[in-house]
């Protein structure tokens, strides 16, 4: 009986305590999280570079690529922090060079070591993290923005990597159409990087 009363009091307290429910949590300061998560998708450079990174990691196999699940978001956070202290360190030439390097590695089907893959991923993520944080308003909650950005980076790289690992041929056949398709994509990425590098130098 006592237990029954106690339940009643708890239920009544729960009903009385909650404040008004906000269906739109963007208005409750969590909007900065969503801003961080969506900001990279408003820039084509982020979309192309992140996807290219995921494809490169996936083409090297799950055992090497899985390190990026941790390294890439950490790189974004590091870039965001460094960009705040020293200003944005990115530019058209740096992004284009990254595209060129990733594209050439993909086109050549180079079997790079895990340490080098992680270093490229961290460098790229740091560049883009700094770029994403460069135009933040003073009243933006940087912690929420960083959390959103890291979540977006984690999601894009993990999904792209997983799709590439699934797409790869099961046998190590360099002339299978899947292997050639991935290498051809690398050729396209490298071509875009080369032209954008020249454009950055010319402008």
């Amino acid at each position, binding site marked *: 009986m006592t237990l029954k009363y106690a339940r009643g009091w708890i239920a009544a307290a729960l009903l009385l305590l909650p404040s008004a429910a906000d269906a739109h949590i963007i208005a409750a300061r969590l909007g900065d999280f969503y801003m961080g998560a969506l900001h990279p998708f408003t820039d*084509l*450079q982020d979309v*192309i570079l992140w996807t290219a990174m995921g494809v490169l990691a996936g083409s090297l196999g799950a055992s090497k690529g899985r390190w990026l699940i941790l390294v890439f978001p950490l790189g974004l956070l590091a870039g965001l922090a460094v960009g705040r202290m020293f200003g944005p360190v990115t530019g058209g030439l740096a992004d284009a060079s990254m595209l060129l390097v990733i594209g050439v590695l993909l*086109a050549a089907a180079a079997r790079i070591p895990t340490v080098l893959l992680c270093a490229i991923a961290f460098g790229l993520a740091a560049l883009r993290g700094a770029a994403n944080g460069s135009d933040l308003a003073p009243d933006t909650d940087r912690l929420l923005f960083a959390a959103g950005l890291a979540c977006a980076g984690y999601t894009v790289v993990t999904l792209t990597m997983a799709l590439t690992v699934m797409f790869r041929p099961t046998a190590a056949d360099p*002339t299978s159409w899947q292997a*050639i398709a991935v*290498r*051809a994509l*690398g*050729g*396209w990425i*490298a*071509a*875009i990087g*080369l*032209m*954008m590098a*020249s*454009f950055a*130098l*010319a*402008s």
Partner: protein
Amino acid sequence: MCSRILRTLPTAIVALALTQPAFAHDQVGVAGGLLSGLLHPATGIDHLIAMVAVGIWGAQLGAPAIWVLPITFPLVMAVGGVLGVLRIPLPMPEVVIAMSALILGLAVAIRLRLPFPAAAAVVAVFAIFHGHAHGAELPGSANPLAYGVGFVTATGLLHLCGIAIGTLTRWPAGERVIQGLGAGIAGLGCYFLAQGLGAFA
């Protein structure tokens, strides 16, 4: 009444056929750059037929050309694109682009079997000229990165079309169709070459 319709109908049809579509809204930003990049190789018939011919010839030559081509062609074309972006002129670009359609069409029509390095060198020279033409448009586009993505993708897809058409070589009748297609491409190349040399001026 009926004769009046018969008199005015051909005029209306001709007027309709000759009009250019009016674009009230110019595309800007990423969408504009991507669209112009995608359409640039596809709307220039000389570019389009040459890229398809490269794919068909690669399929005719077989391995390794059929798989080396889609991997390396965009990169070599990008070298030409760099020259175009940096405004470094190439000699007679329109004439060489027309010649590329003529020579690649002929190679397909007569089933020319060059050694792979020689075939790669021929294609590389033409790739630089085609890339130069595309690259020259890049700085003025609505979004240069989107334009680059668009034209590299369009070129790659045109190659794939050519390679897909080239798979018809497995059947004797298909081989004849491809050779006829090659002759058609060479004929169009002749037309563009004459145009480039000012024959229709």
